[in-house]
């Protein structure tokens, strides 16, 4: 356990340092989601009040998903530049520690992307009659992030040495994360439109989201070990 925690701490602090050394990696997805939000706004405005909330949810979640996909696809870029990934394999860190350290970094990064995207979307979608600002919806987005971050990280590790990963990555990422997107969008609609209670949400889409998260996190942690283990 001590070795696991020590390795987790070393790897996490190191990966955070590496990410902060190149702020472009954080700014690009945020700028991308901003651009997508603006494009959506031009495409959908003006909106009827009836569909206003649904369109806000769709715009926001899609922009986040696209931006996060860019971030996830590049998570191993620093490790790949001088083949530090291969060297790391020879050091034989505990695979779960390695996965969790990258997962913590990617989740922190994802929280920043979600916060900025949602904040901007709320700002763009201001209406006198309806308020779309909701901490509950923000929480739903974070829960969705937990699941897709695990899957995104695993896919990124799989495609480290693949050609045409720019096209392959979204081709795999979007279909596999469809359940999470569906659950997050439906859950958000129930919160904002139908004012569903927490217990009702837990027995429907929110509960599903939690189940998806658990499946993706466990599966990704186990399968990541298979990819990085010594021969």
């Amino acid at each position: 356990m001590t070795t696991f925690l020590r390795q987790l701490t070393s790897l996490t602090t190191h990966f955070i340092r590496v990410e902060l050394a190149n702020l472009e990696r954080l700014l690009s997805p945020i700028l991308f989601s901003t651009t997508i939000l603006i494009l959506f706004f031009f495409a959908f405005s003006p909106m009827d009040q009836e569909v206003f909330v649904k369109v806000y949810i769709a715009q926001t979640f899609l922009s986040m998903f696209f931006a996060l996909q860019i971030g996830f696809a590049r998570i191993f870029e620093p490790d790949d530049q001088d083949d530090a990934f291969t060297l790391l394999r020879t050091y034989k860190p505990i695979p779960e520690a390695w996965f969790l350290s990258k997962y913590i970094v990617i989740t922190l990064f994802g929280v920043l992307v979600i916060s900025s995207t949602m904040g901007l979307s709320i700002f763009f979608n201001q209406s006198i009659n309806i308020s779309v600002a909701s901490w509950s919806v923000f929480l739903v987005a974070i829960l969705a992030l937990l699941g897709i971050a695990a899957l995104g990280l695993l896919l990124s590790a799989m495609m480290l040495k693949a050609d045409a990963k720019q096209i392959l990555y979204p081709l795999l990422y979007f279909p596999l994360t469809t359940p999470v997107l569906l659950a997050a969008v439906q859950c958000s609609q129930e919160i904002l439109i139908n004012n569903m209670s927490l217990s009702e949400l837990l027995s429907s889409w929110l509960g599903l989201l939690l189940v998806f998260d658990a499946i993706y996190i466990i599966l990704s942690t186990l399968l990541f070990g298979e990819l990085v283990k010594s021969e």
Partner: protein
Amino acid sequence: MRESKDILAGLIGLVLVFIGWWYAFSFTPVDAQQGAVYRIIYIHVPAAASALGLCSLGLLVTSIWGLLKPSEKILQASRSWVEVGLIFTTITLLTGSIWGKSTWGTWWTWDARLTTTFLLAILLLAYLLLYNSLRQGKQRIRICSVLGILICVDVPIIYKSVSWWRTLHQPSSIIEQGGRTMDPAMYNALLLNIFLIAIFSTLLWMIRFKNLRLHDQMTQDSFEGVS
């Protein structure tokens, strides 16, 4: 000699499929609501069952095996299931579109099975793209095995989530209801076709697997000839 066995196997498979269709078209009544066009169900549903059921199960088993005991042979087995699965997902989508157009007037509906099949087709295509973009070796076997497991675990999740999503938005369709309100003769014909298509899929898989092994062997022999 080996070739003629494979040709024979393929022909037997085709004959079985035609027998199933002949039975379905000859011994089942016409549907009261849809007329004769409903009979596309005897192609559509077995193709979907093969893609979402048999081929996915084959991919899952070979992928798990590929992680436990990696070898080029098991990877070729996985790849063969992916290719056969892709054929049947394509058939499912095409027949589903034709059925949708004749029944509801639209070429596409966001029905749970069609949507899941569509996403599965994308994932299977992506599997083949990834396979071709990686260098031969144990890493490729591991990566493709991991992807195979991911796809197979995720497909039922995708199906259920889309199914629940559609339940919110529209009542379940005849496709969703499956055989619940079906005439017994129709139901039996459907089961027979599902069974025969499953045999045909397995035969296709075997032929393709042997084909890939032969290709591998030829490549290996040509390298040894050079060195």
